[in-house]
């Protein structure tokens, strides 16, 4: 671990601790540089390779740090940088691994999606800047850095959703996303100011210690916490700030939908976990029982997401609602950390983190399959998907894996992640959350299996000649995501152990 033997106060130490973030931002700048140096070449291949290399190197560094114990109890605990505004620990690295994996899959898939695009550099750089900001969200330890990194992630996302400038759906989705995002950012910033007013600090640990003394300002603190919660609910597409999600996911280019619904949602949870577990834990007794709030919202989100998904005729929109439902499952983790007993807290939060990781692969894969269909121009509804398994068996098999895994059938990673989450909720005393989760999850098999049925059991209705072209990048991304989703069942042990250890360190 030569990197970390550098003097802890030097700037080199800070840079190396934030290695993944630095690599991501450098690769984004490299993409811009390549495009500026030869603006007419429009070399999609070169740009995609640069972006893919950047995300994969960042992923490699993150995994290396995780295995080597950087920022974890094994090597002396969390690394605090910039006066504690940023803290690199196991949890931050775990979430960064999710973001970089998703970004890598999306970049590889976008190579084909952007084949005929006029300006691919903009797309790749926006994607990389958003990923950079997400990796900062995962390590932000002060409400100021949280807000800045959250907005840094949101701004490129708005542009990405509206990336298909000539497509009305895409532009409308981008506008809608932007307006709701702007409102929620305002609410969030106001919430931060109220919390600051009550506690006199922006650093999360300092807020936690100051909460004990806010006797007459408890009401202000409570309102502040609720408004901060609103900001997270927007980012994670949870009820009641979910309205943008179906439009944005449906209207955006499918790789962007994959990125937003997997990575951006996980980023929202990364900050939410850290802020609420580290800063607002003492506020439970003083100001507001946010655990109950998140519990109720989890129930509403699970029910609404799953029932709305069951009524859709458009596959992409169905996946958008399913993504809302999965936000509800992760919210269980946020609600159940209020149980009080340290070990249970760590278990359930670790389970929610592991679920977000598994979800990152299966959901990204599913949206990238949609991207493949969009590229073939087959159509959007379940009827249009009929018989695709006949022409594209490999990709359709991967899609079946994603669907069954999202539904939680015990064949793929999605089973264990849900099982651990529900079990953790029961052990933390939130058995009603687990019950709603189990019921909605059983219901979800209905609409997920409709996709499988359309792909494999139905006979083709339209002309599927377009399927003769085989986009290599999309295929590679979908199949890699599928293989990982399968392998996450036998290999779930290391994932959950890492997640639980990271969560335990936050509560320690």
């Amino acid at each position, binding site marked *: 671990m030569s990197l970390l033997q550098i003097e802890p106060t030097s700037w080199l130490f800070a840079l190396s601790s934030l290695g993944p973030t630095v690599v991501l931002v450098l690769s984004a700048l490299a993409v811009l540089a390549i495009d500026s140096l030869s603006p007419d070449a429009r070399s999609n291949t070169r740009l995609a390779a640069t972006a893919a290399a950047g995300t994969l190197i960042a992923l490699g560094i993150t995994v290396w740090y995780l295995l080597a114990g950087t920022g974890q109890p094994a090597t002396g605990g969390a690394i605090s940088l910039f006066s504690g505004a940023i803290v690199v620990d196991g949890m931050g690295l775990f979430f960064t691994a999710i973001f970089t994996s998703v970004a890598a899959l999306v970049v590889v898939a976008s190579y084909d999606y952007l084949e005929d695009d006029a300006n691919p550099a903009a797309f790749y750089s926006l994607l990389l800047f958003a990923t950079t900001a997400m990796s900062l969200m995962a390590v932000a330890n002060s409400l100021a850095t949280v807000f800045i990194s959250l907005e840094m992630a949101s701004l490129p996302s708005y542009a990405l959703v509206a990336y298909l400038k000539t497509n009305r759906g895409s532009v409308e989705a981008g506008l809608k996303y932007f307006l709701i995002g702007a409102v929620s950012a305002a609410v969030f910033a106001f919430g931060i100011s109220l919390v600051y007013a009550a506690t006199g600090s922006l650093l999360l640990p300092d807020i936690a210690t100051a909460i004990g003394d806010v006797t007459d300002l408890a009401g202000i603190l409570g309102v502040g916490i609720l408004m901060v919660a609103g900001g997270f609910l927007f980012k994670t597409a949870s009820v009641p700030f979910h309205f943008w999600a179906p439009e944005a996911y449906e209207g955006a280019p499918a790789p962007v939908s994959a990125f937003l619904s997997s990575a951006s949602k996980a980023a929202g949870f990364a900050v939410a976990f850290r802020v609420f577990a580290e800063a607002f834990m003492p506020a439970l007794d003083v100001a507001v029982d946010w655990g109950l709030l998140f519990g109720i919202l989890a129930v509403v989100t699970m029910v609404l997401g799953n029932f709305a998904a069951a009524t859709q005729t458009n596959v992409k929109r169905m996946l958008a609602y399913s993504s809302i439902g999965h936000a509800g499952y992760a919210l269980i983790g946020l609600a159940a950390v209020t149980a009080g007993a340290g070990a249970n807290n760590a*278990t359930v939060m670790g389970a929610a983190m592991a679920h977000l990781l598994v979800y990152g692969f299966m959901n990204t894969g599913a949206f990238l399959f949609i991207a493949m269909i969009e590229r073939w121009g087959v159509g959007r509804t379940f009827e249009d998907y009929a018989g695709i398994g*006949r022409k594209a*068996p490999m990709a359709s098999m991967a899609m079946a894996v994603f669907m*069954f895994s999202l539904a939680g*059938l*015990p*064949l793929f990673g999605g*089973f*264990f992640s849900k*099982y*651990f989450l529900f*079990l*953790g909720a029961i*052990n933390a005393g939130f058995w009603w959350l687990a019950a709603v989760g*189990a019921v909605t999850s*059983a219901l979800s*098999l209905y609409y997920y*299996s409709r996709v499988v*049925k359309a792909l*494999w*059991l*139905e006979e083709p209705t339209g002309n599927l000649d377009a399927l003769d072209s085989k986009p290599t990048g999309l295929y590679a991304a979908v199949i890699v995501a599928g293989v990982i989703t399968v392998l996450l*069942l*036998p290999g*779930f*042990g290391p994932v*959950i*152990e890492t997640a639980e250890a990271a969560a335990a360190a936050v509560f320690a």
Partner: protein
Amino acid sequence: MIIEALLAFTFAAALLVFAVPNRYAHKLAFGLSLVPIVGSLYMWSAFEAGGNALTGGQIAFETVAPWLEVAGYQLQWYVGVDGISLPLVVLTTFLTALAIMSAWTPIDDRQSQFYGLMLLMEANLIGVFTALDFFLWFVFWEAVLVPMYFLIGVWGGPRRKYAAIKFFVYTNIASLVMFIAFMALVFSLPVDSFGLPEITQSLAAGELTAFYGLPAETLALVVFAAMFVGFAVKVPVVPVHTWLPDAHVEAPTPASVMLAGVLLKMGTYALLRFNFTMLPEQASAFAIPIGIIAVVSVIYGAMLALAQTDLKRIVAYSSVSSMGYVILGLIAFTEFGMGGATFQMVAHGLISGLMFMAVGVIYNATHTRIVDDMSGLADRMPVAVWILVAGAFAYMGLPLMAGFAGEFFIFVGSFGSTALPYAPVFTALAMFGIVIVAGYLLLAMQRTLFGPFRLETDYELTRAPMHDIAPLVALLGAIVLLGVAPSLFFDMILDATVPILELGGGL
């Protein structure tokens, strides 16, 4: 390591077959499916175990490795066989190879996917019968459903989509009920793993504690009932049998063979392993309702078969009837009752496989299965017809065939049962079922196979090719072999079932 080798080979074979072009898939799949037969026969010859795997007996080919940990419980890769599971593993490998050969004629579309799914299902079935850790077992158990869903849904008859989804939904809901019940059971036990032997022995030692205010005795009864419902759907017994005729009629012949031959045995195997081995006292408490379910399945299943006009539906409903015998044998809690029920699982697997295959061969030639559309087939396709007749007699329990041995053991066992009140009455009622079986099978035979030749379809009747007849002959040979020498399996089965009786049932 032989079990791991068997599983790894079968999974790899499935992947290989998925990848080859359609025109080579059938022969390659058949060739590859012979290797697991060799493996399972080797296991049989090298089998050295005593007692029941769950109650502390010696386990053959046992391997344990940690998998992951959940809430203080260790999940393991834990496989091994005893006298109950080994015959079922042999049955699985044998029947899969024959089912693959019986698919050569009817399957003419997307062959590599079809045969790949067959091998994938075989691998998971071997896993179901060898897994000794609950989670491992559950993964294989559910993984069997997916290939079957596709086999019915893609290659099935006109109402295949409805049948496939009905099958999938029924069995998945049943699994969920069973899973939740079993979790409640394990979390009320002082065990630190999901190993089935550890759980069984802890239960036998009376270590069950209260669960969320539910006293241990009530919890055990509730769990028994929930698991019974969960597994009963798979068996299936009346009244949760309605998915079966739909699935069978729509499924292509090879899938029907696997469904009746092996998949139904998953249900009875799980009942034996979980309900009757882990909770024998609760089984005795529920003896009368279970006895009634068994007898109603026997009689009502047979009556339904009597009312059908489609040959495949007749065979399908008769499976419901035969599974009733198995349940009766299990609930009897006697040496011959339990041993006979386990033996009947294998025997019925072979016989129902033969019946579905023979009906399939006739359908390949006539393109109809409706009894009224044909008669006098015996003159035109003698070999297939005589094998069908032989299979029907095996079904009726002709001595020196496997069906006779299984049913005879069950009746001997259930007649003298002390665990089941009014056992002679239940046995007598169930024996009456044999009369109805003979009735509908003979009636259907007489109308379709004998008399003057008549066929009301637009197709020319052709003789069945060799590769259709060969699996039939092989199955018939196995049925006669087990009928003449039941001890080939029965000794090891008794070795593994007798320890269950000592736990608290009858004797």
